[in-house]
Each structure stands twice: as structure tokens, then as C-alpha cells.
């Protein structure tokens, strides 16, 4: 419509200009006649007629331009409205399938790999829907394969850690037999057998740790929880560990808040975590270092922390400190007897109890490892709550 308007306008404008040009020609011809002496009233009338005619033409052009402008504007508005209507129709038909896709993507990302969308609507959204479903199929297949591989890995580690126990029993057992006749061995031989035994014990720890991790991964690490008083447990672990810290002239102290509420845990596992944390603090700290074990209530949790004033852990290592087989500074690990699995196991054990573990460290200042265990009111109520807290 606007285009037709503009076309007609150009056509009209052309006509007007032709007429104006002709009017000038007529006027000029009349003026030439006047200049040549044919100055008559009729000729002068021609000139003034032409001037008037051109004024009239100019007016016509102006009004024509205004009309055309209105026509063009109206055409544009009509065009835009049409386009808008078309677009909103298009958007409406895109919206439902796209909203479905957004919902489905959120569900898929949330872990529901069985999510699929209904394929339909415009060919583009239908194609998008089909692509989404294919992606979901692939993800589901990959996840199933990964689960299968994980299961095989867990089975393998479980079996391997069992199968290795018999040969380990033999090596350790025969080395112990040699030590039963210690007096008949030379000092070099005794030292050799002691090295064998040390390594057997290390291998034993490694097998236990691997087994714990594999069982935890396979969801086969069942906790035998009971209402547990932490103060005597911590006290007992600290007493046991003191032999080692004393040998390194390290000060092992404890600071336990009185009246800690009982927690619902497997005591042996909490003991295992504490032994791990205190052993790390002891082994990675130099002689005469201090190691402090503290326990306090934080909100609805009990927090147990093991702090040392040892060398600290640099930031890049700290980030991966709970990963498997990640150990402190290589220079130190030579004399450190751990398996590199202690913190990974501690983490999975704490999490199995519904708690959290974290590490804070500053190089040259020391490290603190803290675990938080929830005090569940309903479960704690099961506990025979003692009238007085056991002194630590």
C-alpha cells in the first residue's frame, strides 16, 4: 500500500514538474515577445497567468505531498501491525514447545535422565525436540555404562583387596617367624626383617583403606550407629596417640567443651577419622610442634577440630587435599607412613554420617581439619542422657 502510494506520488510529482517547466517556457516566450516590442495586454496577461498557474501548481504539489505522506505513514503502520500480529502468532506457537524444552532441560540437568519432550509444533521446534530426546537417550546410555563400569571397578577393588590378604598373611607371618628367632639373626638381618614387617603393616593399612573406600563407593559401608558421648571417645584416642607425639616431643592437647550433646554415630568410625587427622598432624609437623584437638557445639552440630602449628599446606594442594592418593609435600612423605587415602576415607565416613569435613591452612602457620556431626534431636533423645557430662 505504502509502495503504491510512493509510486503514485513520484508519478504525480513528475507531471507537476513537467507542467511547471512548460509554464516557464510559455512565460519565457511571452517575455521574449515583450522584449521584442510586442508589448501588449494579452502578452502581459500570459506572463501573469503563468505565474499564477505555477503558484497553483506549487500548492497542489504541497497538498499532494502531504496526502502521500499520510498515505505512506498509514501504510507503514498497517504493515507493522500485520508483522506484529504475524510475529506474536509465531512466538505463541514457539513458546509452548520452548517452555517444555526449558523444563525438560532443567529436569535432565537435575539428574532425571529419563526426561523426554513431546515432539511437535513448527518444524524447527520439532527438530529441537528430536535433538533433545536424542541427547537424553545418549546421556542415559552413557550413565548406564558408567554405572556398570563403576560397579566393575568396585567389585575389582573389593576382590583384589581380599585376594591380596592371603599372600600378605604369608609374608608377614613368615617374617614374624624369623623374628621369633631374633637371637640367632645378625643385626643386619634383624633390620631387614623389620623393614619387611614395616612394609607388611603398611600394605595391610593400604588394603584396609582401599576396602573402606570401595565399600563406601559401592554403598556397602553400613554404619552401626549408636548414641555416642564424644568426650570420652576423644579422650581415649588422644591417650592412644600420645605415645607417638611424645616420641616426637610434640605437645598433644585437648580442649573439649563441657556438656557436649551425644551424637548418633558409629564410634569406631569416628575414632578412625580422629586417628587419621591426629596422625596427619603429627606426621607432617616437625619435632616440638603442638597438636590440639578441640570439640564444641556449633549450631545444631558438634565440631571436632584437629589443629597443628606445622608447615601448613599451600593453596593449590589444599584444594585437592581430600582427593585419593593426594599427599603432602613429597619431601615429607618419605618419612610419613600414610597411604594417601586417609583424608578421602575420613571425608566419605563423615559424609556417611551426614556431616561435613573441611581443611584450613596457612603456610608457615599451621593447619586445622574440622569435622561437623549433626546432633539429631530425635536420635539424641534415644540416648540415655547422662545427668552429668563425663569429665574429659
Amino acid at each position, binding site marked *: 500500500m505504502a509502495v503504491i502510494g510512493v509510486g503514485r506520488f513520484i508519478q504525480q510529482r513528475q507531471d507537476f514538474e513537467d507542467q511547471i517547466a512548460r509554464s516557464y517556457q510559455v512565460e519565457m516566450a511571452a517575455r521574449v515577445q515583450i522584449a521584442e516590442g510586442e508589448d501588449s495586454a494579452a502578452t502581459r496577461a500570459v506572463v501573469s497567468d503563468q505565474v499564477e498557474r505555477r503558484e497553483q501548481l506549487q500548492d497542489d504539489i504541497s497538498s499532494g505531498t502531504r496526502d502521500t505522506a499520510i498515505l505512506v505513514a498509514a501504510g507503514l503502520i498497517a504493515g507493522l501491525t500485520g508483522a506484529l500480529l504475524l510475529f506474536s502468532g509465531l512466538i505463541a506457537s514457539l513458546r509452548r514447545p520452548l517452555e517444555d524444552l526449558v523444563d525438560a532441560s532443567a529436569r535432565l540437568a537435575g539428574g532425571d535422565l529419563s526426561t523426554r519432550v513431546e515432539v511437535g509444533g513448527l518444524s524447527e521446534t520439532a527438530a529441537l525436540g528430536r535433538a533433545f530426546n536424542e541427547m537424553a537417550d545418549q546421556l542415559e546410555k552413557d550413565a548406564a555404562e558408567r554405572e556398570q563400569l563403576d560397579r566393575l571397578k568396585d567389585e575389582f577393588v573389593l576382590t583384589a583387596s*581380599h585376594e591380596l*590378604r592371603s599372600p600378605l*598373611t*604369608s609374608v*608377614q*607371618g613368615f617374617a*614374624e*617367624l624369623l623374628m621369633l628367632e631374633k637371637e640367632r639373626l645378625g643385626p643386619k638381618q634383624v633390620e631387614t626383617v623389620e623393614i619387611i614387617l614395616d612394609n*607388611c603393616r603398611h600394605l595391610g593399612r593400604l588394603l584396609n583403606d582401599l*576396602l573402606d573406600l570401595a565399600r563406601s563407593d559401592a554403598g556397602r559401608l553400613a554404619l552401626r550407629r549408636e548414641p555416642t558421648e564424644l568426650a570420652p571417645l576423644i579422650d581415649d584416642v588422644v591417650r592412644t596417640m600420645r605415645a607417638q607425639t611424645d616420641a616426637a616431643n610434640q605437645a598433644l592437647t585437648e580442649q573439649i567443651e563441657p556438656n557436649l550433646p551425644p551424637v548418633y554415630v558409629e564410634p569406631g568410625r569416628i575414632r578412625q577419622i580422629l586417628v587419621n587427622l591426629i596422625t596427619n598432624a603429627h606426621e607432617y609437623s616437625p619435632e616440638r610442634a603442638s597438636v590440639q584437638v578441640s570439640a564444641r557445639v556449633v549450631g545444631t552440630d558438634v565440631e571436632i577440630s584437629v589443629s597443628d602449628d606445622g608447615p601448613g599446606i599451600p593453596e593449590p594442594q589444599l584444594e585437592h587435599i581430600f582427593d585419593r592418593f593426594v599427599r603432602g609435600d613429597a619431601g615429607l612423605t618419605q618419612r610419613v607412613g600414610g597411604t594417601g587415602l586417609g583424608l578421602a576415607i575420613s571425608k566419605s565416613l563423615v559424609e556417611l554420617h551426614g556431616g561435613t569435613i573441611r581443611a584450613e591452612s596457612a603456610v608457615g602457620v599451621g593447619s586445622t581439619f574440622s569435622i561437623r556431626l549433626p546432633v539429631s534431636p530425635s536420635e539424641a533423645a534415644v540416648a540415655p542422657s547422662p545427668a552429668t557430662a563425663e569429665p574429659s
Partner: protein
Amino acid sequence: MPRVLVADDSETILLLMRTRLELAGYEVETAADGQEVTELVAGTGPPDLLLLDAMMPRKSGIDALRELRAAGVETPALIVSAHQSPDDADAANDVEIDGYVTKPIDFDALLEQVAALTR
């Protein structure tokens, strides 16, 4: 001299067990699997203690013990296992045992248990 019947499918473990037990003053008989255990008990009569590996080919220690208990043999029994707790694969929930020994074997602890059960 108390008589101990030891069963394990590893000859090395059997040799080790025999040596440690004989050094501690026990008379030791050995079997390579559960089948041999039941045959030996049928042949020479029940020993003073059974020390059986949980997992052995042909017949496991637990299956052998179940048969012996069914036949009225009351001999105390220790089950040796590579598993860390009786909750694991070779659980012996349905048969009465007097102790559970895990590998690698702590012989000092084992000899104490054996002494207590053969006293």
C-alpha cells in the same frame, strides 16, 4: 597336647599355621578344603579346635562346619577370612562359631584365642 585341625586352600598359610601352632605346643592336622575337614573328622574323630578358612574350593569352611554341627560335632570353631567383618560376603550367620579371624592374621591374638578355646 590339644589337637587343632586347620583348613586353608593355601599351602603356605597351612605351613605358617602349623609352624606357629606347633611352636606354641599344639598338635596340628591340616586340610586343603572343607571336604577334607569332614572326612578327617569322620576318620580320626573331632579335634579340640577347628580353624577353618571361610572360602575354599569344593567346600567352604562354613559349609563344612554346618555339616559337622548337623552331625552333632560340638568342637569350638574359629573362622578365618580375608573379609574384614562377618557382615561381608562369607557371613556365617546361620552357623554357630566361636570367633572370627581376619587376614592378615595377628598371630599373637590368634594364639590367645586358641589357648582360651582349648583350655
